[in-house]
C-alpha cells in the first residue's frame, strides 16, 4: 500500500487537477451570473489547439497561453451573444459550441499541424518548463508536491482564493451575487446585469482556454484530436459538487484529479489485495456528482437565477 499512496501521487493529482480547477472556476464565474455553461469542454479543446499552434509558430509558450485565452474568450463571446442578445437556450448554445470546437479544432489540426508533420517538421510543443529550485526541492513535503510542476499548477491552486476574495470583498463580487440571485431586482437596483453577464461568461472562456493551454503547454507536449476528453464535463461536475463555491470547486476538482492520478498509478495493481477496476475509478467523479445532485451530501443550491 505504501507504494501506491505517497506524496508523488499527490503531485500527479495536482497536475491532473489543474485544468479541472481552472475550468471549474470559469464555469463558476459564468453560472454565478446566471448563465449555464456546458460549453467548457469545447473551450478547453480550442484553448489546447490554439496554445499548441501559437507556440509552434512563435516558439513562445506565453504567446501560446495568451492565444488560448483569447480563443476561449471568443468562443465564450458566441455563447454570451447567443444567450444574452438572441435569447437562445443556454443548453443548446453550449452543445453547439462544444460541437463547433470539436469540428474546428480537428479541421484546423488536419489543415495546419498534420501537414507540418508530413513535411518532417516537428509538432512537439516546447511548452512551459517546470519550476526548478534546489531550495524548493529541499523542503520536506512541499518539495515533493511541487517537484516538476509548472507555474500554472501553482496559479490554479491559488486562484480559487483570489476568486473567493473578489466575490466577497469587491463591488464586482457583490454585484455577481445580486445578478445570480435575482437579476430583475439587481437591474432595478442599477446593476448593469448584461455587462455583468458578459464579464462572467468571457472570464469563463479565458479560464477554460487557459485550462486547454495547460494540456498542450504543460501536460502533453502536442495537440491530439479531441484531447480535452471530457475534462470540461468533469470540471462542470466539480463546480456542482463544490456547490458553486470557489473553494468547494477547488476541493472537488482536486478530488477528481486524485481519482485520475490513482487510476494512472494503479494500472491493474491490487490495493489491500483487491483489484480495483480502472473503469470504475474513472466513473467515480460522475457517479459522485449524481449522488451529490440527489442531495445525499446535503442540499444543493444553484444560483437561483440560473438559465434565465
Amino acid at each position, binding site marked *: 500500500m505504501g507504494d501506491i499512496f505517497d506524496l508523488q501521487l499527490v503531485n500527479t493529482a495536482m497536475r491532473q487537477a489543474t485544468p479541472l480547477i481552472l475550468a471549474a472556476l470559469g464555469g463558476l464565474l459564468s453560472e454565478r451570473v446566471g448563465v*449555464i455553461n*456546458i460549453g467548457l469542454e469545447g473551450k478547453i479543446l480550442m484553448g489546447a489547439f490554439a496554445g499548441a499552434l501559437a507556440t509552434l509558430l512563435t516558439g513562445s509558450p506565453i504567446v501560446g497561453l495568451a492565444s488560448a485565452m483569447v480563443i476561449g474568450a471568443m468562443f465564450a463571446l*458566441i455563447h454570451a451573444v*447567443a444567450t444574452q442578445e*438572441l*435569447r*437562445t*437556450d443556454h*443548453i*443548446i*448554445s453550449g*452543445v*453547439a*459550441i462544444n*460541437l*463547433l470546437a*470539436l*469540428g*474546428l479544432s*480537428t*479541421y484546423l489540426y*488536419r*489543415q495546419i499541424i498534420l501537414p507540418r508533420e508530413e513535411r518532417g517538421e516537428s509538432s512537439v510543443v516546447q511548452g512551459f518548463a517546470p519550476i526548478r529550485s534546489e531550495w524548493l526541492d529541499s523542503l520536506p513535503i512541499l518539495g515533493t508536491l511541487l517537484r516538476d510542476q509548472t507555474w500554472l499548477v501553482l496559479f490554479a491552486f491559488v486562484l480559487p482564493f483570489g476568486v473567493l476574495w473578489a466575490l466577497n470583498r469587491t463591488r464586482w463580487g457583490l454585484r455577481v451575487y445580486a445578478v445570480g440571485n435575482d*437579476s*430583475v431586482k439587481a*437591474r432595478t437596483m442599477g446593476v448593469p446585469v448584461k455587462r455583468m453577464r458578459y464579464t462572467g461568461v468571457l472570464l469563463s472562456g479565458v479560464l477554460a482556454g487557459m485550462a486547454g493551454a495547460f494540456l498542450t503547454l504543460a501536460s502533453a507536449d502536442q495537440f491530439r484530436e479531441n484531447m480535452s476528453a*471530457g475534462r470540461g*464535463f468533469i470540471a*462542470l*461536475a466539480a463546480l*456542482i459538487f463544490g456547490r458553486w463555491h470557489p473553494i468547494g470547486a477547488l476541493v472537488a476538482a482536486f478530488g477528481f484529479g486524485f481519482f485520475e492520478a490513482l487510476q494512472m498509478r494503479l494500472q491493474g495493481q491490487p490495493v489491500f489485495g483487491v483489484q480495483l*477496476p480502472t*473503469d*470504475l475509478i*474513472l*466513473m467515480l467523479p*460522475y*457517479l459522485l*456528482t*449524481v449522488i451529490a*445532485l*440527489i*442531495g445525499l451530501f446535503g442540499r444543493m443550491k*444553484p444560483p437561483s437565477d440560473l438559465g*434565465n
Partner: protein
Amino acid sequence: MAQALLGALVVLGVLSLLIALSGNSIGQGYRLIVQGAIGIPPSDQLSPLDAWDAVLHDMTLLILTGLSVAIALQAGLFNIGAAGQLLMGAMVAGWIGTRSDLPTAVHLPLTLSLGALVGALWALVPALLKLYRGAHEVITTIMFNYIALYLTHWLLMEHLQDPTSDVPRTAFLAETAQLPPLGSFMQTSWGFVIAVMLALVLWAVLFRTVWGYEVRATGANRDAAEAGGVPVNRRTLQAMLLAGGMAGLAGAIEVVGTQYRFFEGFPADYGFDGIAVALLGANHPALAVVSAWVMSALRGGTYYLHIETGAPKEIAVIVQAVLILYVAAVYLRKRRVEG
C-alpha cells in the same frame, strides 16, 4: 421564410469557406458533396450503392437518436443522454446476441427489445431524479453518458470479451440474432425500415392520441397541464422511457444490423447528433426523418469530398454546429419577457 433563406445562406457560406480553406475550388467541392449525398460516385472505385448505403445507415441511427431527443423535449426534458442510452442498448445487444442458448424465433426480437429496455431504464433514472429530487436532467444525463461509457467498458473487459480475441470486443453475433441487410453487401439493415416506421408511429401517437396530447401539454406548460388534469409526472416519465428506448434501440440495431458485435470505442456520438436532428426537425417525429436525411447527406457528401481531395471530414461537424446555433437563435428563442 426570409429567416430560412438567411439560414441557408449562412450554412452555404460556412460550407464554402471551409471547402476553400481546405484548398479546393468551391465548385468542385460542392459537386463532390452533392454526388456523395445523392449517390453518384465521383470515381470508379466507388459504386453509387456505397454512397446510398452510407447515407441510409447514418439515417437509421440519426432518426432514432433524433426521435429520442425530440420526444423528451416534447415532454419538456432535455435528453443530452442519448449517447449513454445508445451505448447501454448496444452493450446489452452484444451480450444477448452472442448467446447461443436462445430459441431462434425469439433471439432477434429479444435482443432488440432488451437493448431498447435497458436504454429506457438508463433514461428513466435521470427523469426520476429530476421529478423527485430536483436534479437538473441536463447535468444528470451528461453524467450518465460518462457512467455508461465506463460501465459498458468495464462489463466488456470483465465479462463480455471474446476470449479468443486480443481486441476488446464481444464474439461475433449468433446468426439467429442478426438483422438482415437491406440489400446484399449493404451495411444498412432492415433497422432503417424499423426507424422510419417508428417515426411515423410516434407522429401518430404524439399528434393523434390523448396520450400524445398530454405529453405535449406537459412540455408546453407543466402547471397548466396539471391544472387541466394531466398526470404530468407520469407523462414525463413515460416520455423519457420512450426517449431512452429509441436511443437504446439505435445502439441495438447498430449491433445486430451492422457491426454484429459490441466493441471498445463503439460510435456513441450518434447520440449527440440526435440533438441536431431533433432541433432541425422542430421536435416533430416525421420531420426527424427529413432532418436525419439532411445530416446524413451532409456527412455522406463531405465523406466523398474527404476521399477525393483529403479535405477533413470534420467539415460536416462544423456545419452541423452552425446549423444548431442558427436554428436555436432564430426559431427557439425564449418566449420569456426581458427580465
